[in-house]
C-alpha cells in the first residue's frame, strides 16, 4: 500500500486514541464512567448505537456478500424500524425511568436476583466471545493481505480501542463513535462515487448487467422457515431479533441509558430506524457495483492472496490450467457485457434479450472455473476459503486512488473498534454492577468501583484479543457459542416482555426463561433447517406463555 495511505491509517488511529482520552472528563465517579452522568445528547447516542452494531464484518463481509449474492440480505433489517418504534414506547421508558445501570439490574427490581444473574451471565459469555470474533474477522483479512501475523493484526485493532475505552468509559466510546461514523459514511459514499466513475458503462447499463446476473433481487415474498433472507423472516423474525438486541443487550441498552432523558433516549433509537436500511442497502450496492466493475476489469481467480500464493506453490500445473480457462472465459464475458450495453442502446428488445442470454451463459462459465479454484484452495490449505471477505479489500488496494484506499482501510479498523469499544464498556458494566457490586462488595467508594471497572474493561479487552488471536483454530467453538447465543436471545426478550405484564411473578420469569432456552435448543437440534431468525420468535413466545401460566397458578406477588 502507498505510504500516504499508511499515514492516513496511522494518523486516524492516533487521533481517535487522543480524542477518546481527552473526552474522559467527568469520569471520576462510576455514573460518569458507565453512563456519562446521563448527560449525552440524543444524536450522539443515536450515532453511537449505530456505530456499535456496524462492525468490520459489515464493511468487508456485507459488501462481499453484495458482490456474490446481491441485495437480498437487506431484508434481514426490515424489522428494525418497527422494533425501534416499539422499544421507544415500551421498554425504553421502563429502563431509563428506573435509573438502573444495566438492563439486568431492572430484572432484579421487577423479579428476583437469580433471574438477573442468569441473564447477565448469558450476556457476558456470548458478548465476550463475539467480541473476539469481531476483532478476528478483519484481523484474518489484514493478515492475509498485508502479510502481518494474526497477533499483530489483532493488536492494531484491539489495543487502541481497549486503551481509550479503559480510560474514558462511555464518554470516550460515544464521542469516538460519532467521529468514526463520519469517517465510515465518508468512505462508503466516496467508494460508491469512485466505482460509478470507474465502471466503463453508464450507471443504468451497469444496473442492467447487475440485474441480469440476479444481483438486484431484493424481495422474496415466499414464506419459508428454512430460508433466512425472505421478506417475512426479516419483518417477523427480524423484529424479534432487533427487539432482543436493542431492548435487552447491555451493549445497546447502556448507550441510551446515558441519554439526558427518556425522550432523548427514544429519539436516539430512531436514528437507527431512520438510517439502517438505506445505509445497509448502500453497503450492499457497493458490493454489486464492485461485481459490475469486475465484469470489465480482470478479477483475480482467488481473491485471498494467501491462498493464491499457497495454491500457486503447491499445485502450479493445475492452477495454471484453471487460470488459462479463467482468462479465456473473462474475455468472452467482457465482450458479452459490452454487447448488453450496446443492445440496450440499439432499442431492439429481441437483441437485448439475446445479449442478456449470452452474457448469462458466459458469466456461468467463469463462475464454474472459480468454483473449481475455490475447492482446490480449500483442499490445499485445509481451511474454508471465505473468499467473499477478500473481494472488497482486493478492490480497494488494487483499484482505489491513493488516499481513498487509506481512508477505507482506516474506516474498516474504525468499524471494528466501534463495535468492540461499546461491547467492552458494557461487559465491564455488567461484570461490576451485576456481579462484583451485587455479590462481592456492596459498599465501597466510587474510586474503588471506578478502579475495578477499568480493570474489568482491560480484562475483557485482553480476553477478546486472545480469543481473536486463536480464533482461526477456535472457528468451530465460536460457531458453537454463536449458536448457543441464538438459544437465549429471544428468551431474554421474553423475560423483559413478561416484566411488563403486571401479574407476572419471579418464578414464572425464571422457569419461563429456562423453558424458552430449552424449546429453542430442541428446535435447533430437532429441526436444524429452521432459520435462526425464527429462534428469537420461538424463544420469546415460549417464555411469555410459560411465564404467564406459572404466574397465574403461583403465589400472589408481594410488593
Amino acid at each position, binding site marked *: 500500500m502507498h505510504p500516504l495511505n499508511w499515514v492516513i491509517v496511522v494518523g486516524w488511529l492516533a487521533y481517535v486514541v487522543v480524542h477518546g482520552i481527552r473526552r474522559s472528563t467527568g469520569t471520576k465517579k462510576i455514573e460518569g464512567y458507565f453512563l456519562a452522568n446521563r448527560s449525552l445528547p440524543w444524536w450522539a447516542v443515536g450515532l453511537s448505537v449505530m456505530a456499535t452494531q456496524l462492525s468490520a464484518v459489515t464493511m468487508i463481509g456485507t459488501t462481499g456478500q453484495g458482490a456474490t449474492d446481491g*441485495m437480498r440480505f437487506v431484508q434481514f433489517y426490515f424489522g428494525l*424500524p418497527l422494533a425501534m*418504534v416499539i422499544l421507544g414506547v415500551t421498554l425504553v421508558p421502563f429502563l431509563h425511568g428506573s435509573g438502573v445501570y444495566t438492563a439486568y439490574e431492572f430484572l432484579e427490581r421487577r423479579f428476583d436476583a437469580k433471574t438477573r444473574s442468569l441473564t447477565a451471565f448469558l450476556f457476558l459469555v456470548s458478548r465476550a466471545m463475539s467480541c473476539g470474533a469481531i476483532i478476528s474477522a478483519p484481523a484474518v483479512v489484514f493478515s492475509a493481505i498485508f502479510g502481518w501475523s494474526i497477533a499483530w493484526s489483532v493488536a492494531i485493532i484491539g489495543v487502541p480501542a481497549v486503551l481509550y475505552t479503559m480510560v474514558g468509559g462511555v464518554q470516550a466510546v460515544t464521542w469516538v463513535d460519532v467521529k468514526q461514523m463520519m469517517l465510515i459514511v465518508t468512505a462508503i459514499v466516496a467508494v460508491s462515487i469512485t466505482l460509478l466513475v470507474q465502471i466503463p458503462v453508464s450507471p443504468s447499463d451497469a*444496473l442492467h448487467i447487475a440485474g441480469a446476473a440476479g444481483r438486484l433481487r431484493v424481495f422474496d415474498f415466499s414464506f419459508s422457515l428454512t430460508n433466512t433472507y425472505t421478506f417475512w423472516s426479516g419483518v417477523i423474525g427480524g423484529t424479534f431479533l432487533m427487539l432482543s438486541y436493542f431492548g435487552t443487550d447491555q451493549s445497546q441498552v447502556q448507550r441510551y441509558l446515558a441519554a439526558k432523558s427518556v425522550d432523548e433516549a427514544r429519539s436516539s433509537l*430512531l436514528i437507527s430506524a*431512520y438510517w439502517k436500511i*438505506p445505509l445497509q442497502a448502500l453497503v450492499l450496492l457497493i458490493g454489486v457495483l464492485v461485481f459490475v466493475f469486475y465484469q470489465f476489469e480482470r478479477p483475480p481467480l482467488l481473491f485471498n492472496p494467501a491462498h493464491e500464493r499457497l495454491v500457486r506453490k503447491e499445485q502450479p500445473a493445475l492452477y495454471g490450467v484453471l487460470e488459462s480457462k479463467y482468462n479465456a472465459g473473462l474475455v468472452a464475458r467482457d465482450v458479452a457485457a459490452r454487447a448488453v450495453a450496446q443492445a440496450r442502446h440499439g432499442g431492439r428488445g429481441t437483441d437485448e434479450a439475446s445479449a442478456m442470454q449470452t452474457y448469462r451463459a458466459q458469466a456461468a462459465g467463469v463462475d464454474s472455473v472459480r468454483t473449481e479454484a475455490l475447492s482446490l484452495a480449500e483442499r490445499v490449505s485445509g481451511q474454508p476459503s471465505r473468499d467473499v471477505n477478500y473481494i472488497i479489500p482486493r478492490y480497494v488496494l488494487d483499484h482505489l486512488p491513493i488516499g481513498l484506499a487509506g481512508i477505507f482501510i482506516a474506516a474498516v479498523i474504525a468499524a471494528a473498534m466501534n463495535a468492540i469499544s461499546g461491547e467492552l464498556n458494557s461487559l465491564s458494566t455488567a461484570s461490576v454492577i451485576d456481579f462484583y457490586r451485587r455479590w462481592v462488595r456492596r459498599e465501597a467508594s466510587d474510586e474503588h468501583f471506578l478502579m475495578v471497572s477499568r480493570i474489568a474493561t482491560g480484562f475483557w479487552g485482553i480476553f477478546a484479543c486472545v480469543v481473536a488471536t486463536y480464533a482461526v483454530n477456535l472457528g468451530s467453538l465460536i460457531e458453537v457459542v454463536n449458536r448457543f447465543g441464538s438459544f437465549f436471545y429471544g428468551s431474554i426478550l421474553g423475560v423483559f416482555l413478561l416484566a411488563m405484564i403486571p401479574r407476572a411473578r419471579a418464578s414464572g420469569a425464571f422457569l419461563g426463561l429456562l423453558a424458552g432456552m430449552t424449546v429453542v435448543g430442541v428446535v435447533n437440534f430437532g429441526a436444524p433447517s429452521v432459520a435462526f431468525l425464527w429462534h428469537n420468535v420461538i424463544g420469546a413466545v415460549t417464555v411469555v406463555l410459560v411465564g404467564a401460566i406459572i404466574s397465574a397458578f403461583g403465589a400472589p406477588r408481594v410488593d
Partner: protein
Amino acid sequence: MSGETNGSRRFRRTLASVMFVQIVTLCALWFLQWRYSA
C-alpha cells in the same frame, strides 16, 4: 397537546419522518428490482 414536551414533539416528528424514509427506501428498492431484474 399543551402538556407536550419538546422531547415528545421531536419524537413524534422524527417518527413521522422515519416512516416516510422507510417507505421511500422500500419503494426505491422495489423499483431497482422491477426495472433491472426483469
